[in-house]
């Protein structure tokens, strides 16, 4: 072994089986609904069956007298419980409309599922029965179910705002008019990015309990215990230090648990009012109305290029259906994509308009990818449309226009700096794995033969911005919070450590990955690391888990805290070894004196000596514990090349994915097995959007896909085995070289699949198939292209 060779015994970069699994595979997890404090009251929310109506009366008297019922309240009864409205975190424009949003409505209902009253009973069953006895009278108003109708402002969702236009945002850079006028070719399309329901398999739940010593504990199925604590303290008027929020085991989130929900505020307010624990668990059908939806953009797009296929400009005019109220990041979700429409291409001009619109539907908010899937779908679909217009191979167009590896770091036209990337390497690897040329030959053969089952090949050479986010950048965008992350390392006397993280995992395996990072940094056995999270009484600082941020910022914080522990331990070691600090070397958990390898102390020796505190430097405290709060210098930019081969039955419209190859570059990898799992799951959700899922409302504003019977979450039988591989181009914005992986698969896969479906049908004149590309939508696209009546 030479002096420069990296240690081979490290945990980072290796598969380590998850520490999280034991309780999960044996049925010993602690989900929020498993928590039932003594004397707990069950809460049921009485919800509007109408999309839009004036509430003319709410009578809870019969319900209050029902067996087992302790209390029932209307919105008016609880009006004094709120210090302020439920929060919207992002003031996207100076004049954004932010109408009040209280946990129960009083004047009007604005979507099916809007809460009008609550019932509290001693059992779940009694609460369900009593909720039926609440008498609400409504004076119906017209529903507003699409953005074009809403923008006419004939029927207002929030009367006091005077308009359904929540905000309009415009941004251009480069000489847009000149670039588009001088372009050899401009292709325009309207694409629909349909409404989706996140569907974490664990429904939302909350338990709020008064503590005998004062204050309250709130258990919630949330991704964001820290943000929830601050916001609930503000909304309910509980002093922050008297509010403990716990995210116990949380069964998936995907953005749907990244919010401050009415039921969380209600449970805490009612625990305050009644002095008893309050528990609420949504049913799935209830959650489909009361938990946020995602996407729902109409995208009017134009791409400009030279005749030889060099992309020069992109325009996007986005109408975003925000639903009835602003939840936490409702306004900002389209904005998270605003920077990413140029994607990996060297554009000369960029023009973006986003119009956020109120409708009488469930609020939309961040769903896995949050803005970036919408942007990526837009650009990657349009590059394929451009290639078809030019008669070029769609990969050739991409190669001509993307940022070359040697051009990094690259300043984009939207003001971002992509620190690193290697689109060539990921693409070459994916093309070889996929057998691109062979599949193109088969496609041509089927076209020549007039096969009724056509083969399509779809490409997505995506990038995204994640690792949310540099706090100053957020501040400049009027986002009302920071994007830092925190970690503490506690050194125990026997040399074991506790890592306390501000991230809040709900399936991502942070306990395992953070153990790998800390073990390597400190030279400790992996088994000697415990990772604690998700309880504000233990983890006092954090910004939680969303936006593929946890590793790039939270993992970085763990690494940084470890460096601080080492720096302290080094001074103790120098003291104990009677050497100059400059002569102390640290490797594999041992401090030694340079040139005297026998003079050494392990980090465990130091930990015990510091605990005893009999002999340590005058100017130090006897402690090795350290904390780090990391504010990232930049976003991170994972990328990759996803290729999909889809067979489309032109007679039935049925789409079958034959091959799906994904080569992702997420920078350095801590645990390849966890990363691969994140990619698999991400792809599945993106394929779900492409092929199966859509939240559908009828003209009266009823959610007709109101349960898992009607909303098609893909099963194992609906999906192929995804083939995944990686390239590794380290991020330069953090010492671990990591980028983030949680959303990449979802962002990448939707356009890859839809491009394949459209590619299969292109000889029939089809230029788009509306998502989901169901048999019906495929059939309609074929009929329309061939002049049919559809």
């Amino acid at each position, binding site marked *: 072994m030479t002096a420069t060779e990296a240690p081979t015994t490290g945990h980072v970069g290796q598969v380590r*089986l*998850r*520490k*999280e*699994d*034991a*309780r*999960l*595979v*044996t*049925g*010993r*997890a602690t*989900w929020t*609904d*498993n928590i*039932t404090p003594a004397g707990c009251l069950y809460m049921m929310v009485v919800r509007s069956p109408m999309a839009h109506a004036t509430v003319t009366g709410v009578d809870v008297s019969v319900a209050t007298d029902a067996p087992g019922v302790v209390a029932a309240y209307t919105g008016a009864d609880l009006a004094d419980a709120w210090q302020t409205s439920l929060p919207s975190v992002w003031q996207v424009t100076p004049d954004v409309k932010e109408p009040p949003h209280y946990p129960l409505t009083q004047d009007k209902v604005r979507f099916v599922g809007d809460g009008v009253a609550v019932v509290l009973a001693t059992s*779940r*069953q009694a609460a369900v029965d009593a909720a039926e006895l609440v008498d609400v009278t409504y004076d119906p108003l017209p529903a507003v179910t699409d953005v074009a109708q809403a923008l006419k402002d004939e029927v207002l969702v929030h009367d006091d705002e005077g308009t359904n236009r929540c905000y309009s945002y415009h941004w251009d850079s480069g000489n847009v008019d000149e670039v588009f006028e001088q372009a050899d070719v401009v292709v325009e399309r309207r694409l629909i990015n349909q409404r989706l329901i996140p*569907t*974490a*398999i*664990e*429904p939302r739940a909350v338990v709020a309990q008064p503590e005998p010593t004062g204050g309250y504990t709130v258990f919630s199925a949330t991704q964001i215990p820290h943000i929830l604590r601050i916001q609930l303290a503000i909304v309910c008027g509980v002093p922050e230090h008297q509010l403990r929020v716990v995210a116990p*085991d*949380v*069964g*998936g989130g*995907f953005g749907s648990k990244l919010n401050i929900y009415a039921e969380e505020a209600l449970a805490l307010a009612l625990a305050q009012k009644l002095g008893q624990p309050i528990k609420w668990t949504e*049913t*799935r*059908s209830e959650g489909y109305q009361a938990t946020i939806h995602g996407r729902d953009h109409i995208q009017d797009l134009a791409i400009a290029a030279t005749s030889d296929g060099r992309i020069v400009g992109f325009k996007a005019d986005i109408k975003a259906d925000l639903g009835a109220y602003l939840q936490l990041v409702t306004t900002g979700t389209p904005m998270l994509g605003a920077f990413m429409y140029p994607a990996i291409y060297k554009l000369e001009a960029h023009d973006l308009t986003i119009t956020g619109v109120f409708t009488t539907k469930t609020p939309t908010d961040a769903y896995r990818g949050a803005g970036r899937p919408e942007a990526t779908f837009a650009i990657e679909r349009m590059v394929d449309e451009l290639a078809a217009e030019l008669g070029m191979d769609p990969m050739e167009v991409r190669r001509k226009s993307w940022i070359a590896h040697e051009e990094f770091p690259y300043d984009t036209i939207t003001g971002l700096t992509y620190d690193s990337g290697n689109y060539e390497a990921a693409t070459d690897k994916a093309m070889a794995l996929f057998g691109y040329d062979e599949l193109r030959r088969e496609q041509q053969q089927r076209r020549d033969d007039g096969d009724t089952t056509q083969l399509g090949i779809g490409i997505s050479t995506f990038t995204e911005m994640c690792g949310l986010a540099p706090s100053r950048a957020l501040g400049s965008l009027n986002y009302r919070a920071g994007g830092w992350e925190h970690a503490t390392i506690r050194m125990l006397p026997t040399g074991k450590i506790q890592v306390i993280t501000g991230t809040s995992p*709900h*399936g*991502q*395996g942070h306990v395992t990955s953070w153990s790998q990072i800390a073990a390597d940094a400190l030279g400790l056995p992996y*088994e000697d690391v415990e990772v604690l999270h998700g309880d504000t009484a233990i983890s006092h600082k954090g910004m939680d888990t969303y936006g593929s941020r946890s590793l790039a910022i939270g993992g970085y914080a763990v690494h940084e805290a470890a460096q601080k522990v080492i720096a302290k331990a080094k001074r103790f070691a120098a003291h104990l070894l009677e050497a100059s600090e400059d002569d102390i070397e640290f490797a594999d958990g041992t401090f030694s004196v340079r040139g005297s390898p026998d003079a050494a102390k392990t980090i465990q020796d130091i930990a015990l000596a510091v605990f005893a505190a009999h002999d340590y430097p005058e100017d130090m405290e006897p402690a090795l514990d350290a904390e780090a709060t990391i504010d990232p210098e930049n976003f991170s930019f994972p990328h990759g090349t996803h290729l999909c081969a889809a067979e489309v039955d032109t007679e039935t419209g049925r789409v079958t994915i034959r091959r799906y190859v994904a080569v992702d570059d997420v920078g350095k990898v801590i645990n390849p*097995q*966890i990363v*691969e*799992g*994140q990619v*698999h*799951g*991400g*792809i*599945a*959700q993106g394929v779900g959007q492409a092929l199966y899922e859509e939240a559908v409302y009828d003209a009266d504003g009823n959610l007709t896909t109101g*349960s*898992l*019977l009607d909303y098609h*979450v893909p*099963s*194992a*039988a*609906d*999906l192929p*085995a*995804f083939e995944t591989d990686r390239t590794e181009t380290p991020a330069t914005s953090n010492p671990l070289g990591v980028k983030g992986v949680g959303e990449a*698969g979802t962002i990448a896969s939707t356009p890859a699949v839809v491009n394949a479906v459209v590619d299969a049908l292109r000889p029939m004149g089809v230029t788009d198939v509306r998502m989901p590309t169901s048999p019906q939508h495929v059939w309609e696209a074929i009929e329309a292209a061939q002049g049919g009546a559809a």
Partner: protein
Amino acid sequence: MTNVQITVDGTTYEDEVEPRLLLVQYLRDVLGKTGTNIGCDTSNCGACTVHLDGRSVKSCTVLAVQADGATVDTIEGLASTDGAGGDGDATAGWHPLQRAFHTEHGLQCGYCTPGMIMAAADLLRENPDPSEEEVRHGLEGNLCRCTGYVNIVKAVRTAAAELRGEEVGA
């Protein structure tokens, strides 16, 4: 109220229950056996899958009174030892499916996992050597939103090989 006698994970319980009480609510709310989860209200997700007299059922589609006199096995009784052991190598007493979900990373958040494992156990009882296609179709009544199913399918086939007595992980 109706009297029921149900043997759950080897212990026989006798309780007065409302006729409308679902088996899954009986397990969770009456017995406190919260290893079995509820993920929907339309019998689509399979999170609540248990074995009723040895066959897998979605316990949200069975009333507690219908299970009177029956034997119910849940995820909590699947390991041959306590199974609650700590991290690391405390997997010795686990069922091969529990071990394979762990080694193949067949779970992320873990909420669907108890139902998925119980459904898979019944699938392997019927078909000890399922192909990938057969696993995918055999588990189509159980939804997972995290894994994309790739590693669940692997885990089930790995466990199947172990249950057939083949060497695993060679």
